[in-house]
């Protein structure tokens, strides 16, 4: 087998200076990372299936039928001779034919909130969406608890919490990110810490708790949840917003992996080993 350094020599280039390999990600971190990846994929697509049964979001305890407390509605309506997909956000309507409200199903259009590739199953099936969603909800919570216990024990949790030094470096770190200049020193920079801590300590608990607030059984036991989130329908709206934030996180996360060197990043999340930059010069 040819090693990387032999290839470099063979192509007659000066061997590049390479940093050393460090054991970056512990087994517990790697397993929970991929469990979340799979779980959140299923939760998102089954969640959108569930949302299709009532594609409206409201503020308050109940849904307004005799009054209007909707903040988002996805539907279809007839304009002239043609049916349009209409999305209404805070009272302003947008024609979203093809994306939302009226989408392709097979080789024709149908009145449906989301296209089939965004939901599990691809066709309308609330019962199955709920079965998938609630199975992975248990997996999600179990993974969170396992991660929390392991990270408390092995010190990973401390790596994620921003320090005073991090906060002072924040402006420089933002500037570095904007110039796409990344440091690979095997430590989290402050923006990474803030986004991972934000996902794990804010978004995840919030999406679990707002999910429980929608459960008539759970709020009989934990009625304060209804007051905390301002009612069942507000909780449903927050649940949806946090989903949106997690999707944004996912997009930025994957983008950063690609920009920072996808092979090295992926290797560290599969084998644990990560190649750092050559030693920093002061």
């Amino acid at each position, binding site marked *: 087998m040819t090693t990387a350094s032999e290839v470099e020599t063979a192509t007659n280039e000066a061997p590049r200076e390479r940093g050393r390999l460090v054991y970056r990600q512990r087994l517990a971190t790697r397993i929970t990372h991929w469990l979340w990846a799979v779980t959140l994929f299923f939760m998102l697509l089954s969640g959108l299936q569930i949302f299709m049964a009532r594609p409206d979001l409201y503020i308050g305890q109940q*849904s307004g039928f005799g009054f209007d407390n909707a903040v988002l509605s996805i539907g279809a309506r007839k304009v002239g001779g043609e049916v349009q997909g209409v999305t209404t956000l805070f009272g302003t309507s947008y024609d979203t*034919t093809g994306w939302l409200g009226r989408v392709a199903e097979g080789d024709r259009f149908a009145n449906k909130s989301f*296209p089939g590739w965004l939901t599990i199953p691809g066709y309308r099936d609330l019962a199955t969406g709920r079965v998938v969603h609630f199975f992975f909800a248990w997996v999600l919570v179990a993974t969170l608890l396992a991660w929390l216990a392991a990270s408390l024990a092995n010190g990973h949790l401390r790596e994620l919490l921003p320090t005073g030094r991090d906060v002072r470096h924040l402006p420089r770190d933002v500037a570095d990110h904007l110039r796409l200049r990344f440091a690979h020193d095997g430590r989290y920079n402050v923006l990474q810490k803030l986004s991972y801590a934000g996902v794990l300590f804010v978004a995840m608990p919030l999406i679990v708790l707002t999910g429980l607030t929608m459960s008539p059984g759970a*709020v009989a036991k934990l009625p304060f949840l*209804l007051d905390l989130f301002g009612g069942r329908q507000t909780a449903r709206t927050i649940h949806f917003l946090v989903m949106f934030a997690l999707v944004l996180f996912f997009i930025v996360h994957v983008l950063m992996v690609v920009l920072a060197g996808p092979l090295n990043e992926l290797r560290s999340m599969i084998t644990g080993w990560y190649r750092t930059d050559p030693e920093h010069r002061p």
Partner: protein
Amino acid sequence: MTRLALSRRRFLTGATLASAGTLSGCFDPLGNRDSSVRGVLETANSLTYRVQRMLLGSDDLAREYSESEIRQPQRPNGSTDPRDGDYRQMAGENFASYRLKIGGLVDAPLEVSLDELRAMPARTQITRHDCVEGWSCIAKWTGVPLAGLIDQVRPKTSARFVVFECFDTMENGFTGPIKYYESIDLHDARHPQTILAYGLNGAPLPVSNGAPLRVRVERQLGYKMAKYIRSLTLTDDLAAYGDGNGGYWEDRGYEWFAGI
């Protein structure tokens, strides 16, 4: 209106590529209720049931609201105007001939008229109705606590469930009309907020909301709260009813315990 629409042709091309190239449809077999993978996923429902049963004491009540939070009529859903002959006739005479039958695994079967039910101690509660679709609606319900009726018929020790059989036909199957039915365990049946409601927002329960009687099971979703109730049967086994899953929607893939 702002235009964000795609041209039809461009969209259909994109959609076809997306569905061919991505995971679309891969998980559609989960919709098959005999699929073994679905069977594994459904074990989570029994976990949910057991955990909620463990945590939910009989004194944990669903939130009750104030009069000011009744801001609209109760939204009717499911059957709203049964066409069944026996029901039409009864409704025509204002349910004067209606008799609720309670039987099954009991020592003292019972038949009661609507007037007799109205003469029993009543409970009124302003609660939030949560539909499985995702919407909620707050209304005031008045009715007879089911716990009292159950004590009156003296259940045998083997009784575990109450089955509600209803007047309304949901669809016509090969073997005749399929009528709505539901079931709950005795734990929920004896809960203080579980009532057979004959009143809604201070008036008699209208036909669209389930007249003459509908059950309220406040710690579960709307489809558990059967409307147009014909009879109550106490049983130890749900297999004899419908397709054996404990309810009309349960036979169509929805979970029997709808606390979430």
